[in-house]
């Protein structure tokens, strides 16, 4: 057997060349001897080493391929791998299921030990592959999220929906807990090993079952955690990008033919009635609508008020007293108003006649009536003489 350290040293020394081989292999699915010779500067010794250490394998048609073990090791070192199709992960469903059945039907101790070892191996591989894929998915999603400048919106949408349809949804189905899922089989294996680690009569088998129990129990926790990452990190972001795309499609359809589609039904505003009990709220609503609108304010010139005659009792009483004695009270009123207003209206005339009820004057009715012509009517009044104060 070749000393492993010797192989590692060789890998270290010629890593760049081996990396080129890895890339060619990935690109073309095979490597030609001429290419290898060019890469290694026609050094036969080095090419022989490659073959001796089984880094490359010769095929019947004399072409070479990179050994799968090295291939996955280098891809791990370079963090360079593409997502596995969900089918590649789902295959573990079958393998774990058949191993589980085998364990249940195993009769000899040897058979049980071998099956458990196979179960442990298989779950290790599954967990490894799952983790790789989930962290790759998270990385890809974050790339879409972060590269606002590099990726335009349609490109983002396309990438997000690819990821969702091809990987995230199938993965989620594989991981969810239902009778067809991997988690379901893992649960069965946990149950079985949990019982056996206590009930089995063979001490040695008890230990082996305990180990199986621990490793499956850990894996289950890991899957739940990975699924949580998928649900909490990847799906919401992809959904958000996807929902943006739906909104866009809907909006464009609506713009193209808006009368064919329904819109949200809201409530019409109520009619504003000033005397209703809601007036305060309605007014408030209207004001809220106007805050911030700067309307032009136009102020009209105020019109001057008309000179309106008002009956001022004290003023006319004083005048009356000054004019004493008065032959006829009603003629005096007419003259007073005519002097002041020119036109004597009946309304003003009657207002001023109220002076006659004043207690400070002494009046005497004469047995004679006269007509007085006012602007709006003719009135028939008695002759009243006012002589002095009481």
């Amino acid at each position, binding site marked *: 057997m070749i000393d492993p350290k010797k192989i590692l040293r060789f890998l270290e020394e010629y890593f760049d060349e081996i990396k080129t081989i890895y890339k060619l292999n990935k690109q073309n699915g095979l490597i030609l001897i001429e290419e290898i010779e060019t890469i290694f500067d026609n050094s036969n010794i080095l090419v022989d080493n490659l073959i001796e250490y089984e880094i490359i394998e010769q095929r019947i048609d004399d072409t070479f391929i990179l050994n799968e073990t090295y291939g996955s090791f280098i891809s791990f070192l370079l963090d360079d791998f593409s997502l596995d199709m969900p089918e590649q992960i789902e295959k573990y469903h079958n393998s774990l299921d058949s191993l589980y059945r085998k364990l249940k039907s195993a009769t000899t101790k040897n058979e049980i030990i071998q099956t458990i070892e196979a179960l442990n191996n298989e779950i290790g591989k599954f967990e490894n592959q799952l983790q790789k894929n989930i962290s790759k998915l998270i990385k890809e999603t974050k790339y879409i999220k972060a590269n*606002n400048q590099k990726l335009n*919106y349609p490109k983002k949408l396309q990438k997000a929906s690819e990821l969702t349809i091809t990987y995230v949804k199938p993965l989620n189905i594989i991981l969810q807990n239902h009778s067809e899922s991997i988690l379901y089989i893992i649960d069965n294996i946990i149950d079985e090993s949990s019982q056996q680690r206590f009930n089995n009569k063979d001490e040695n088998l008890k230990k082996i079952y305990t180990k199986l129990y621990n490793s499956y129990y850990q894996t289950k926790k890991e899957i739940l955690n990975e699924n949580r990452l998928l649900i909490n990190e990847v799906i919401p972001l992809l959904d958000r990008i996807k929902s943006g795309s*739906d909104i*866009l499609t*809907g*909006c*464009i359809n609506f713009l193209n033919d808006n009368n064919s589609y329904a819109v949200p039904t809201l409530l019409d*505003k109520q009619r504003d009635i000033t005397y209703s009990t809601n007036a305060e709220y309605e007014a408030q609503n209207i004001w*809220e*609508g106007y805050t911030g609108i700067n309307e032009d304010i136009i102020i009209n010139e105020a019109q001057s008020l008309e000179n309106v005659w008002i009956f001022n009792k004290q003023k006319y009483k004083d005048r009356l007293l000054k004019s004493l004695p008065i032959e006829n009270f009603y003629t005096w009123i007419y003259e007073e108003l005519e002097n002041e207003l020119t036109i004597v209206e009946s309304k003003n005339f009657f207002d001023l006649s109220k002076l006659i009820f004043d207690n400070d004057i002494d009046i005497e009715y004469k047995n004679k009536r006269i007509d007085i012509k006012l602007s709006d009517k003719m009135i028939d009044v008695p002759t009243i003489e006012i002589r002095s104060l009481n």
Partner: protein
Amino acid sequence: MNYPKKHYEIVQNLLNGKFILQGQTTYDILVPNYNFYKTFFKESFQYDLIKTSEVIYLSSDNTSEKFSRNLMLILAILVDNINLQGKDLYEELFKNYKIKDIEMIIKDSSYKSVCRNIIKNNGIESLLKSDCQKRNIIKYSNNYDTFQFTSAINIFLEQAKDIANMSNMQDEKEQF
């Protein structure tokens, strides 16, 4: 019986076509009393009280849909414009806008003609400043003369999604 706190305000706001937004005190009062108010509005007015994780509002089939359709048109043009610029829809929609920005976007849009009835007579300004503000669909900031859409527009965005899904279903039917 005892009515919930702010009962009068809640009823008045809803009857005036206002959206009650998550984060408002009235929203927090409405949520635990949702069933009461749902029955109350159905029995008293034949209105449906609709609750989402973001807004609560009243809906009725017997109302004109002019406002709703006009707002949907404006939002659709805005979404189309954001897409043409290759920007993120959610980030852009909830930015601060000036009314003039929206008017420009509509003016420059190839879908301008479907909005011709709204554009007339300063229609966009009155739709946004008056109707939308009264209904809590936008939050207007007087200091900066800008506004921001509230989460109430999600009702319209959800409608757009339904329209998209409806069209997808139709396409699939046609293929069969």
